[in-house]
């Protein structure tokens, strides 16, 4: 199960590729042969299961395309380091 999830507001995307360049698990790519209302190839998630919800994409995106969710932390066993 994926640890994170991104929601992409496609029509805001300008296809600049900044998010693609910073995603630590390399699951973002620009669409091929498909364009959004602005005429840019929007960003897509190639492998949603790998998303960690780190929000790096949202942090670098100049156009506020991403909304990011992360799985709530499970209560840890008492022995686990915090």
């Amino acid at each position: 199960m994926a640890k994170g999830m991104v929601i992409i507001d496609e029509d805001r995307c300008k296809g600049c590729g900044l998010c693609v360049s910073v995603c630590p698990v390399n699951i973002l790519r620009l669409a091929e042969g498909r364009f959004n209302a602005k005429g840019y190839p929007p960003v897509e998630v190639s492998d949603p299961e790998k998303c960690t919800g780190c929000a790096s994409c949202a942090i670098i995106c100049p156009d506020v395309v991403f909304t990011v969710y992360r799985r709530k932390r499970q209560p840890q066993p008492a022995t686990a380091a915090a």
Partner: protein
Amino acid sequence: MATIDIPADMELVYQRPESLTPAHTHYCPGCTHGIIHRLIAEVLDELGLRERTIGIAPVGCSVLAYYYFNFDMAEAAHGRAPAMATGMKRTNPDKVVFTYQGDGDLAAIGTAEIVHSANRGELFTTIFVNNAIYGMTGGQMAPTTLPGQVSTSCPSGRDVELAGFPMHMAELLGGLPGTAYVTRQAVFDVRGIRRTKKALTTAFRAQLAGLGFTMVEVLSTCNTNWHMSVLGALEWAKDKMVGYYPLGDTKVSDAVRAMLEEK
């Protein structure tokens, strides 16, 4: 947008800050103005200041910033934002006032206004976007254009014999007694963006505490007028700009230091 079901065990970690409107920006793809706008909005939200804030847009690519910020905004004449901010903040000390200025705006035509505002210790915050070029007018030499850097008005590269040297504004203003917090940051990667956000938080907190003038210079890109790809511009910026404009604080007054330690 299709509605998407969010699993119950997922929590929201990032969404558009309330201090930004839903408007799409007119900035070029990959332009870092968008990142800086977002950071300001996030910080104002986190500090709960949206309804107390008055921002001032410059003349430059960010002239329309008031479409994107979701709080009261005015649009200044080229370079005069610090004088406007002075007029606003002195009459409205309970408000949070900031100017958002490019390098042409702040370090050329508006040099007198920024230097004197800083020196008087005006209690507003300046976000200084240094992209080493005049973006809006199509890529002419800025006061911060690097030696040798090509622009449409120095087509064979900035010749310092002819045009003088680039202005180091963070150092200049950091040296003035009226400033409380002056820093230079860069938004060229996730780490730098996080640091810039931290710096903005410090600046706005120092303003709230009335500690003096605060400025965050943000090294920025203009891939369009640098005639580079988005990622190529980031690489050039990290390589060349950061070398010429060292990152870090040029002023942290004792009072700001105390404020930071208190936390």
